[in-house]
């Protein structure tokens, strides 16, 4: 299968690069084999295995005709994007603010709200998720959540 061969090549290339990096590692005085010893074994094995994957991928000629199913990749990308923004914003906006924004955005994009009722649902979910989880974790479970460096909140 072509896809396997491509994946195998990517893995092999990345491992080869890392292997090259391990060559620069100094030996340490305390451990007889040094910090590069095990990485070289792992990367060597990974390179060998991924080359096997490339060969067996090319050997097996034909992909089985994949089931035609329309998958909504745009939505997946959007969700990853929104989550990425959330993670990026957390240390600046703080947990409560960022979480409320994220939950609202994710919910609204997964199920676009119609009318005031729909927006009410989005808002309620966002506020509840952010503040309830903050309350439970900081107040009752002694788990501190990120505070915003811009907001102090």
């Amino acid at each position, binding site marked *: 299968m072509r*896809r*396997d061969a491509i*994946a*195998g090549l990517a*893995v092999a290339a990345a*491992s080869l690069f*890392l292997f090259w*990096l*391990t060559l620069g*590692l100094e030996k*340490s005085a*305390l*451990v*007889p*084999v040094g*910090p590069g010893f*095990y*990485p070289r074994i*792992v*990367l060597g094995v*990974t390179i060998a*295995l*991924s080359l*096997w*994957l490339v060969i*067996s991928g090319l050997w097996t000629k034909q992909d*089985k005709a994949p089931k035609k199913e329309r*998958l*909504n*990749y745009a*939505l*997946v990308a959007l*969700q*990853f994007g929104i*989550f990425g923004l*959330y*993670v990026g914003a*957390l*240390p600046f906006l703080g947990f409560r603010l960022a*979480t409320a924004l*994220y*939950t609202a955005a*994710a*919910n609204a994009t*997964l*199920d676009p709200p119609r009318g005031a009722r729909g927006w009410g*649902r989005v808002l309620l*979910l966002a506020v509840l*998720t*952010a503040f309830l*989880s903050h309350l*439970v*974790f900081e107040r*009752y*479970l*002694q*788990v*501190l*959540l*990120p505070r915003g460096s811009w907001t102090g909140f």
Partner: protein
Amino acid sequence: MFELLGAGLADIVQLKYLTALLTGCLIGVVGGALPGITITMTVIVVLPFTFGLEPLQGLATMIGVYVGGETGGLITSCLLGIPGKPSAVATTFDGFPMARKGEPGRALWLGIWASIFGGLLGAVFLVATTGPLAAIALAFGPWEYFSLFLLALSMVAGLVESSLAKGLVSGALGCVVTILGNDPVLGQERLTLGIPFLSGGIPFLPVLIGVFAFAQIMQDVERMGGAAKALEAVDRGVNLAVSHLKVILEILSRPFLLLWSTFIGLAIGVLPAIGGSAANMLAYDQAKKFSRHPERFGTGTPEGIIASESSNNANVAGSLVTIMAFGIPGDAVTAVMLGALTVHGIQSGPLFISQHATLAYGMFAAYIVAHGLVLLLLLPGVRWMLRIVTIPKSMLFPVVLVLCTIGAYALNNTMDNVYVLLVFGVFGYAMVKFRFPLAPFILGVILGDQIEINLIRAIMTDPNPWLFLTRPISGGLIAASVASLAFSIWQHYRHRARVAEADADF
């Protein structure tokens, strides 16, 4: 042992533990019943809550989730024909036809009671073997651990997916994650790629959370359109009345089936990282082979339901044995438990049961009591479960991901782990799209550091490399891993034509 178990039972029925266990069971049943939410994801969601609890409270919650999830998954399997989780797939084969033939109550309660019996039989094994196995494990030096981890990796890589090469590459990639950033022996930086937060290495829990949560959720998101359709209307008026005595007798009149399915579940559970999805399919397959009426399978025969459900609950007990005696997670759920133990500073491994006897027997007791609690929850609550599965995923997913974020953050109280979560979320989804199995990857991430540490320890203790082969236990384990690889190569050749690529589950 029995005094300790008695003390454990006395502990667990205290209000603070019982509440935790009951909450866990409830969340587990709900999470197991929700299609698209696996038990792994449920236990990930519960993880951050356990940070602030006592160790036994936290673990009781997780055990409750585990047992509840295995049982809860059968509700949607039987009544809607949708497996609530991968380890209930085989339950749909006969549970749903039976329900459609007008016996939904019988299908459901056959499954529930079979789960309870399988689980309780598993408990006997759990309590009886953990101690002796731990004593054996204490004799394990670095050589033996190294070989044991190698065996675990090669077995998982060979067993979970139709392509051995992909399984092995996936496992190797898991180990590659652990070599980045930091050398576990001296704590020296290595291969940091110039990324500052890599300098401390990559902890396995955020990787696990990211890979499983995103791989699962995004596969569902793919299928959501602009107008996401809710689950088709559920017939809440369905009649679930049944004679429990009759159902119990129906199960107990097939003692061989029950015992054999339980045994399969246990065996699969003890083997690292294979998980309940393999257990229920294998048990179903075996039940069919041994049956006098194999043609009835798939049409609503009770044997199919009993085999599937007793094996997946016994699988939980098997996984608990592995993690408590050896400190190796039997599947993703126990890997999260391992993380919870570590957060509380408890080293799981051969000394766990003797050093933390109260906790260990508390866990046994929690496992046993959880079955009773699940039954108590389901007796009045089954109908209510049908209502819960209609919660829209568009609301569920953001909340689940927020809880995953909290879990990753609270683990070490740094944003670094949240970044790891995001990166490996993308990576896990990519793996699924390239049809790489996730289980060997995760096992590699979990064991990679341990493999290195034990390898270095062995070399520092004695530089002779042949010790890995000449020490009897270590040599035996290496031979077993070679045999398991050879077996899977042979099996793949035999099955190549037949086996379609299974969806990544776990």
